[in-house]
């Protein structure tokens, strides 16, 4: 039987791949995609704990639904910001956007 640790390991690997994407991507949309990968890793954790620790309740799954909702809101606002940056700077590579750096 596939146990809790299998799902947690899968989720840890997926989360680390997402962090790697955030650290190394130059394109802002690529960074947003990596963040979505990390959200998915967290959701797998929530659902796995919901099944293996509290199998008679659904609190973990409800948490995952709220995470998905907030992720959708985040993607909408994030992509709107990306489009605005593209319009003003003619580029969305984050190493060229340094207006807030000293």
């Amino acid at each position: 039987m596939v146990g809790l640790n299998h799902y947690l390991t899968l989720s840890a690997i997926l989360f680390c791949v997402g962090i790697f994407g955030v650290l190394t991507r130059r394109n802002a949309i690529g960074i947003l995609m990596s963040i979505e990968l990390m959200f998915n890793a967290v959701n797998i954790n929530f659902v796995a704990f919901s099944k293996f620790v509290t199998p008679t309740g659904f609190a973990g799954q409800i948490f995952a639904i709220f995470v998905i909702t907030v992720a959708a809101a985040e993607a909408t606002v994030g992509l709107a910001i990306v489009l605005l940056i593209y319009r003003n700077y003619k580029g969305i590579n984050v190493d060229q956007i340094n207006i807030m750096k000293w």
Partner: protein
Amino acid sequence: MLTGVPATIFYILAAMIIGSAVMVVSMKNIFHSALFLVLCFFSVAGIYILLGAEFLAAVQILIYVGAITILMIFAIMLTHKLYSAKIKQSNEQVVPGLIIVGALLIATLFALGNTAWKLSFETPEAQSTVGIGKLLLTEYVLPFEVVSVVLLTALIGAVIIARRE
């Protein structure tokens, strides 16, 4: 390694998730990354079904595959010139990033292996959709209403940010 049908399905889905996630963060062409993201989200939906969360699997496909990825592809199309293969897509932090991520992964797996979770072996309710529906309209009705305000705020915010002056 485990054997048996559920374990085999789990390993196939896990390999698809991790493989497509690695492609998402490493592809030269950002449009191909978005397509691999779709594959990754589908495999995660499979994992949800394996965990007995059918409703969440449906929500995953509807919202992640149907809405978020399409939104990403729209944004890639609108920022058109940038995704040609000639442009470098990663910065100079690849090696430090790999070291940090590897250290984090080892620390996480070490912590996972050394924690005794309070596992419960009660039989789960057969229909997760019914249970989730009841909980959302009784115990979690306040978060359920608040999250609709969050969505409305995001909607208005996105329109105001992206409109032309």
